């Protein structure tokens, strides 16, 4: 595969790059901000981001400039910008790297975004477990205040912005943007019913934009090099730019890789991530974090862009690609994921709260050799009763591992039930329990 230019991982790929303000500036950092503040009208920045084709990297892929343009212009304010650094989708570990290795890239993106939408107070909502990430960000923010990139009169242009780190405390659901807002308000992280949308009724009921870390990190590059340039990368017009894909599971070289959207799964699994561990055959893969439906070897030539993956029946989601080799038990894999979803269901909507626990119990029963053939129909029926019947997308996410493994590996479920044991495991299933704190 042809080499391509790194954008987001470029600085940190230089030997010795520390992520300090000095290093970032030496690499051309904060030039975009200087180009913008007081020189380009805020509305033009939003237009530029719209034209670039940038879509959200947090999971849903909403066009970023369009999201910004929903903020009512005549609102007396305050308005808020929030960086979603909750990164809790199993399989995803890119935001952690973007924040810890090049924090100013994202901060510069946030300042430009804040300017574009007229925000004076902004928060980075970072998951509680990322203690180091929060420390790195605090240090970077202090540097940025010191250098006059944040605070009262930024670069002497009169534009003012305060930026704070706000730590979560262990709850996957707080990555969902309205649950995140509740959490920022000091409440339990229960998603809100939409509408109204955060653009008009967000944090403290004020107009609010929530964007993912990687989304915001793209903004300085768009300003520096132009919307047309950005719109020419990847697979435009629907999937412009690069993505940082997180490779995990049974590949030789797991890790974060930034590639233009539109490469194929075959390329990223076999070339970029080095192929299958031990050269075993590929059995299945998850293309976009735990909430995305499993895909099969027959999907290897699908392109990694929003539309192509959706067409294949799954989603690009968070960019977490998990690869599983032949011999991996699919019932066990689905059970593991349902353990996650059951643990993380916030409890607001009955179908999700009760359903996730029933689904988990049934999967566990089948995996442990105690399943009945009727269980398969029950699984399908339960999934159908959850899909589309919850306040947020969590409900659809939690059924994806089951519906997709049932679609592709029904025989495997049946074998578990017929033989009353897991055909892949010689010993009894280890009791993985989760006690949390």
């Amino acid at each position, binding site marked *: 595969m042809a080499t391509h230019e790194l954008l987001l991982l470029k600085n940190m790929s230089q*030997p010795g790059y520390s992520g300090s303000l000095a290093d970032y500036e030496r690499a051309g950092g904060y030039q975009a901000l200087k180009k913008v503040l007081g020189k380009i009208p805020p509305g033009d920045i939003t237009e530029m981001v719209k034209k670039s084709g940038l879509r959200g990297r947090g999971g849903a892929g909403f066009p970023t400039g369009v999201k910004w343009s929903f903020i009512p212009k005549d609102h007396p304010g305050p308005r808020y910008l929030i960086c979603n650094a909750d990164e809790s989708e199993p399989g995803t570990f890119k935001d952690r790297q973007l924040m810890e290795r090049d924090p100013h890239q994202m901060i510069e993106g946030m300042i430009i975004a804040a300017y574009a939408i007229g925000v004076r107070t902004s928060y980075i909502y970072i998951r509680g477990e*990322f203690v*180091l990430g929060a420390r790195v960000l605090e240090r970077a923010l202090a540097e940025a205040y010191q250098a006059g990139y944040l605070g009262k009169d930024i670069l002497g242009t009169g534009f003012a912005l305060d930026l704070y780190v706000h730590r979560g*405390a262990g709850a996957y659901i707080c990555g969902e943007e309205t649950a995140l807002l509740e959490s920022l308000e000091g409440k339990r992280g229960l998603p809100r019913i939409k509408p109204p949308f955060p653009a008009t009724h967000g944090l403290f009921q004020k107009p609010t934009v929530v964007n993912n870390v990687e989304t915001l990190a793209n903004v300085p590059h768009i300003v520096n090099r132009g919307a047309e340039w950005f719109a020419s990368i990847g697979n435009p017009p629907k999937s412009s730019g690069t993505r940082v894909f997180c490779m995990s599971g049974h590949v030789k070289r797991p890790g*974060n890789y930034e590639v233009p959207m539109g490469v194929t799964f075959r390329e990223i699994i076999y070339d970029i991530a080095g192929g299958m561990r031990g050269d075993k055959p590929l059995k299945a893969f998850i293309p976009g974090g735990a909430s995305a439906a499993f895909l099969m070897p027959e999907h290897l030539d699908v392109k990694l862009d929003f539309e192509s993956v959706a067409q294949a029946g799954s989603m690009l989601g968070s960019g977490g690609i998990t690869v599983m080799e032949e011999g991996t038990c699919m019932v066990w894999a689905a059970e593991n994921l349902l353990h996650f979803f059951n643990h993380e269901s916030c409890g607001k909507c009955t179908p999700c709260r009760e359903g996730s626990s029933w689904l988990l119990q049934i999967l566990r029963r089948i995996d442990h050799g105690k399943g009945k053939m009727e269980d398969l129909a029950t699984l399908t029926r339960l999934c159908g009763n959850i899909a589309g019947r919850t306040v947020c997308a969590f409900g659809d996410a939690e059924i994806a591992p089951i519906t997709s493994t049932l679609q592709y590996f029904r025989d495997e479920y049946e074998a578990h039930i017929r033989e009353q044991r897991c055909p892949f495991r010689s010993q009894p299933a*280890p009791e993985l*329990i989760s006690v949390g704190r």
Partner: protein
Amino acid sequence: MTSAFSKAAQERIPGIIARYAEKRGALLPLLWLAQEEQGYVSEEAMKEIAGWLDLTPPQVYETVTFYTMYNRRPIGKYHIQVCRSLMCALVGTDNLLGWIHAKLGIKTGQTTPDGLFTLSQVECLGSCGTGPMMQINDDYYERLTQDKTNRVLDDVKREGKCPLATGPFMFPEPAQK
């Protein structure tokens, strides 16, 4: 009345509250502060925080109990949290739990008799490409092998930390020139 917060911590509180247009926004940060001070969030601390933020103690309590990272009672000095989610499980969560058991004699949910280590299994910690992994208090330990795990546990027991903790994260690390 003695406070759950030290004098220095109390002085930080107004600044934290000022970051939010509504006081309640400061609830999570103040709970973190309380946990930093005492190792857990005591009921006294919750009541004090309620006072600071004009909330009722039950409003604070319902928030505390929603989030898994706030401890409501003291725990072992070192909290080992092993990621059990799929991506880590594919590359050996079971092995890691076995190594910890061999070394410390504890299973999930247990604390060593000396009260030093408590072992939990948790969901994805955002290091799925570098499993199996565990977090001990604030630090991440990734790509664990049995040798590495033993060394981490020895070091932590002796000194409270281990140089094998992950620094600012990047994987794969860039090639050195």
